[in-house]
Structures are given as C-alpha cells and as structure tokens.
C-alpha cells in the first residue's frame, strides 16, 4: 500500500472536561478524497485545527508526507504542502479578489520579503493566481473588492487560494456550506478533478457531495472515529446509522 500523505496518530485534545478529540487516527492516501462526517459538536473543527496547526494536540502526532509536524505552527505546515480552506471565510475583505489569490501564490511560490516592485507586476506570481481563479470560475471577478462578492463566490475564492499553493494535501472545512445546488454541483466537479493533483481531506455536511465524492468516509462522534470505510460500508454500518445517519433523516 502507498504511504499516506497525511496521517494522524491517536491525537487527543481536551478542553477542560470535554474531550474534543479522543485518540483520533486517520490517514489520507494519494489520489483519494477522505470525507469526515459527524453531527455538530463531534469535534470536526478541533480535528482540523490540530491537522492545520492552529491547535496542538495533548497527545498523539500528526504526520505530513512522512514527517512529524505535530509541533510545527500553521505557516510551516503550509510551506510543507498543506493547504486548507476555512469554514468561515478568512479573506482580506478590503483587497481585490486577485490580491487574495496573489497572497496564496506568495506563500507558496514567492517571497514576501520584497518591498519595491508591485506584486501585481510579478508575472509568475500573477499567472499562478489568475490560473487558480480561472479554475474556480472567478476570472471575471478578479478586480472586484472581495467584500462585494456573494457568499458562494467567497467560498470559491477560499478554494482558489488553496489552489494557488499547489499543495500536497488539501484540507477543506465545509467548502459547500451556503452554496446553492448549482454551486455545490460545480464545486463537486472541481473537487473530483482536484483529487488527482493532491488528495483531499474533506469535512462536509452536504451528504450528496460526500457520497458523490468520497473514496472513504470516517464518522466522528463525540471526538472519536466510530467507523471508517467506503461509502457502501458506511451506509451499511449499524453504529453509524444509530449515531448519526438515523438521527438526521
């Protein structure tokens, strides 16, 4: 079997008496989309936080491309090839759409320690940013101020910024949230292609998207992974039905 690109080994994180992550072990293999589902409060955000580096686990370890990155801050993990999107858009709202995309290109392919020439006239940087915007269909919005974008367009820009980084791994925190049916379908098609560039760890509430995209699904309940398997396995799993799917439908 191929080496996982991203792996968590028994990571545990408590806030006071609450165990938000309880010995969570997951892996993400090349070319796959691994979806994490679970009811609200299951610890999905805490998990993403520990994978991206915003939170440090109390115990356990996170491996990126075979390297232990548990102690590294988010920016170092990003430079090692981990790109994430945020559940609540984290964008420079006063800046243009293109500038936001440039920022992603800057972190991955450029240096921020240049003080004189305009970022916009850096050809390689700009081409990279524009290519990412084109892939999510935001080319025509490039010059607009980000704050003027619709909610759905902001979600797409989140994905575009991650794309500019040409990462080894995508970690996406509910990219479909708030998108209409049409938007979801478009983004589903995009993610479907993306998995061949880098595998995707996908936290998502939209079950249609999850079942359409995921190679594997892990179910998180009260901070623990109660099941991992293919779509069919998860659909058939009794514990999952009891704990989660049954409750929703």
């Amino acid at each position, binding site marked *: 079997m191929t080496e996982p690109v991203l792996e968590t080994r028994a990571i545990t994180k408590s806030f006071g008496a609450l165990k938000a992550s309880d010995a969570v072990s997951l892996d993400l293999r090349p070319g796959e989309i691994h979806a994490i589902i679970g009811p609200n409060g299951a610890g999905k955000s805490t998990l993403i936080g520990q994978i*991206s*580096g*915003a939170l440090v686990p109390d115990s356990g370890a996170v491996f990126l491309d075979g390297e232990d990155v548990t102690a590294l*801050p*988010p*920016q*170092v993990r*990003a*430079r090692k090839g981990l*790109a*994430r999107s*945020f559940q609540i858009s*984290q*964008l*420079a*709202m*006063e*800046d243009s759409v293109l*500038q*936001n995309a*440039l*920022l*992603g290109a*800057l*972190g*991955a392919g*450029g*240096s*921020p*320690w*240049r*003080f*004189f*020439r*305009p*970022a*916009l006239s*850096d050809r390689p*940087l700009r081409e990279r940013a524009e290519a990412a915007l084109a892939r999510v269909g935001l080319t025509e919005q490039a010059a607009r*101020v980000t704050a003027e974008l619709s909610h759905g367009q902001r979600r797409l820009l989140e994905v575009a*910024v991650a794309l*500019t*980084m040409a990462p080894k791994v995508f970690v996406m925190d509910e990219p479909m949230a708030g998108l209409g049916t049409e938007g979801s379908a478009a983004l589903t098609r995009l993610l479907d292609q993306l998995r061949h560039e880098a595998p995707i760890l996908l936290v998502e509430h939209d079950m249609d998207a999850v079942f359409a995209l995921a190679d594997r699904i892990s179910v998180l309940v009260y901070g623990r992974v109660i099941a991992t398997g293919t779509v069919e396995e998860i659909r058939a799993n009794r514990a999952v039905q009891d704990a989660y799917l049954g409750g929703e439908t």
Partner: protein
Amino acid sequence: MSREAVINAVVVAGLVLVPLWAVWADEPFTITLATRAVVLALAAVGLNLALGLGGLVSLGHAVFFGIGGYAMGVLASHAQSYTPLMEWPVLIEGTKSMPIIWLVSIVASALVALVIGSVSLRTSGVYFIMITLAFGQMFFFFTISWAAYGGEDGLSIYVRNGFPGLNTLVPIQFYGLCLVVLLVVLVFCSALARSPFGLALNAARQAPERVQAVGLDPFRLRLVAFVISGAITGLAGALFADLARFVSPTMFSWQLSGEIMVFIIIGGVARLFGPVVGAVLFVMLEHWLGGLSDYWHVFLGLLLLGIVLFAKGGLIGVLAGKARAHD
C-alpha cells in the same frame, strides 16, 4: 486621476509653493511652520505604515522620534564640545554631518523597534496598545535620569548640522531638504504598499489566519513593518531635533505619541497622504487656535472627538468621498 490623487497633487503643490511664497514675501516664520509640519508628517508617515497597513495601534511611537532626536543630540553635542563619544574599544567621535546622523538615527531606532516589537507583538489588541505606551514612558523616564546628556533639561545644539552642498542655516534650504526626505519616503511607502510585502502585511491585518494558512508568519511580517515604521519615525526625530536645535525627554512623551496618531486620524488612516494632510492641518490649528486661546487643546480635543465619532476616514476620506482607502 482619482479624487484622492488630485488631493495628493494639490498637497504636494502647496508644500512646494507656500514656502517659496514665504521667501518672496519675507515671512521666515511661515517657513519654520512649514518645516515643522513636514517633519511631523514624516513621523506620522512612519506610524501610518504600522497602523494603516499593519493594523498595529502603537501608542509609543514617540520612542523612535526621541531615539532619532537623541542620536542627533548625542553626536552633535560631542562634536560641539570636541569630546569623543567613547575611546575604548574603538574611538568614536561626534559629528555635525546630517547624513551620518540620519544613518545613526535610522539604525538606532530600527534596533529599538526590533526589541520593543519582539516583546509587544507577542500580544495583540489592547495589550499591544498598553505595552507600547509603557515602553514610551520607560524611555521618557530613562532620559530624565540620564544626567550625562542633560537629564530633564535636555541638550542644546547651538548650530544646525550640515548637509553637503547646502547651507542648512538658510531656512528655505533646510525646508527643501526635509521636504525631499518626506517625498522620498512617501514614494517608498507607496511602493511598499503595493509590493509583495505590503500585500502580505495588509492581509495579515485583515485575515491573519489566512496568511498563516498560505505559509506566511504574521508575527514576522508585523515585526518587519514595525521596524521600518520605527526607523522612519526615528529619522523624523533627527530632523525635528535639527529644526529645534534642541532635544529633551519630551520627545519621548506619551502626548507626542498620541499626537502623531492624531495626525493620521485627522488626515485619514491608511491613505498615503493622510498623515501629511493631518500634520499640516495640526500645525495650522496649533498656530491659529493657539494664537486665539491658550487652551486650544480643548478645541483640538473636540475636533478629534467629532472626527472619530462622525467622520471616519479623516479629511481625505471626506473630500475623496470614501470611508476607507482601497488600493
């Protein structure tokens, strides 16, 4: 050309023409006022880099103003008394040469900014405000107790320092020099705001988590911005000391830190010319209102309160018709 660009051009034209008129009309005091405005503007341009672009509400920028001033004071006082600064391990003499003094001011204030920034940027929000204010007070009290360089009384420098090819004792020549420095720094700041560094710094103010997620360290971006910002304000301090031919602990005072920030607000935060317009307006108010009433700070306070509560965006914001600057 946008309305803001028109305003900027008018400001530059005014800064060039009004002092020339003053020479023609033989109004040397107007030139002194204009020089004061230009130098204070430079100090505020420095702060605006940290505040406007970086979102760092530093209430201690007088520290750098004072460091720049004292760099000039110390070097020039040794030169005027013909005593070396130190003899061991290397002999360092004083100097009356502006370029050297400027360089020392810039390096010294950048180093102090590096130290203060390293401590204070570990925090954010109100902590940062209170800490920068406290460090300002530390330098204030330190210079008061520093008897070797005048303590509370400060240091007088009897003859203005020299610049190659100019007679700095002629007011308009010194003014021209200060204006050129200001314009060069403005060009630099304008380039910086568009540069990759400016882009990243500006994003770190708006969405720090995003900046981290693309692999950049907001702390380092802010620290570098704070250092550049401090160096610019330090340079302004050296010029201010040469204008007054006097340095004293009041250059480090918290009131001055507050006033530098006020210039920016009056003019407009994060706008290239905001601090310039603010400083010019401040010096004009100080002159006119100060002539009408000894208690003109009451009116300044009311004006400031009005701007903060009702006219965010400052004077340029009102004139250009936009609440906030976008690039």
